[in-house]
């Protein structure tokens, strides 16, 4: 299959890292807005904006994040108002690698892009993106192309 690609401006990448640093040692989370390609390798998804959201998991915010349905509705509304799509979600892994966990997989949806930024001792490290396979068996990596 073709490698999936996600274009992300440097300023937006910086905002995701900064959000992860700001909420450290808790997980940050937010929505990715933009335009979907047609699935072909030459037309990547393009993220054009973010909607930072609050992590609603008060009981275990260091290794879990959760959004309310109203948060999701707010992100969908923001996308509609801008004439773009809700492409997916970002969250941080404080002091953990930028790889999806089993817990991530259990709670993910196909199609969405899931960006994970690792924040180690308060410093942003790797940023990766993933898409859940349709049968939910595993994630496929999505190449992030950071553009100026």
């Amino acid at each position, binding site marked *: 299959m073709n490698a999936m690609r996600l274009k992300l401006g440097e300023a937006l990448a910086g905002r995701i890292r900064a959000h992860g640093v700001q909420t450290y040692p808790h*997980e940050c*989370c937010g929505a990715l807005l933009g335009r*979907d390609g047609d699935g072909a390798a030459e037309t990547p998804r393009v993220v054009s904006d973010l909607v930072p959201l609050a992590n609603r*998991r008060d009981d*275990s915010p260091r*290794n*879990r*994040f*959760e*959004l309310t*349905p109203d*948060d*999701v*509705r707010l992100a*969908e509304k923001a996308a509609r108002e801008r004439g773009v*799509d*809700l*492409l997916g*979600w970002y*969250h941080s*892994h*404080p002091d*953990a690698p930028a790889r*999806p*966990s089993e*817990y*991530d997989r259990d*709670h*993910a*949806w*196909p*199609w*969405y892009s*899931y960006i994970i930024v690792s924040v180690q001792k308060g410093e942003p490290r790797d940023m990766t993106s993933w898409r859940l396979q349709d049968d939910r068996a595993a994630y496929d990596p999505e190449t992030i192309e950071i553009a100026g």
Partner: protein
Amino acid sequence: MGVKVIIPTPLRAYAGKQESVEVQGATVGEALTALTAKFGDLKKHLYTEDGRLRSFVNVYVNDEDIRFLQKDKTGVNEGDTISIIPSIAGGA
């Protein structure tokens, strides 16, 4: 009665790539049954095998979560909007 069902982006592939679908029904249950009759592939993403709405699928009528109304028996009127809202969670 005609109601609009808004389809979230991950499920549009199973709904003819449409953002919203117009269906007939007097309750949320009837409207969603009409939706899944039209787009059979949607059913397994919305319902468990024993026919209950999946726990990570939220359904709203206009601005109200049907869990706090009459669930799938919640009545809908001409011009109402039903939204299917995915639950989002994860973590390291």
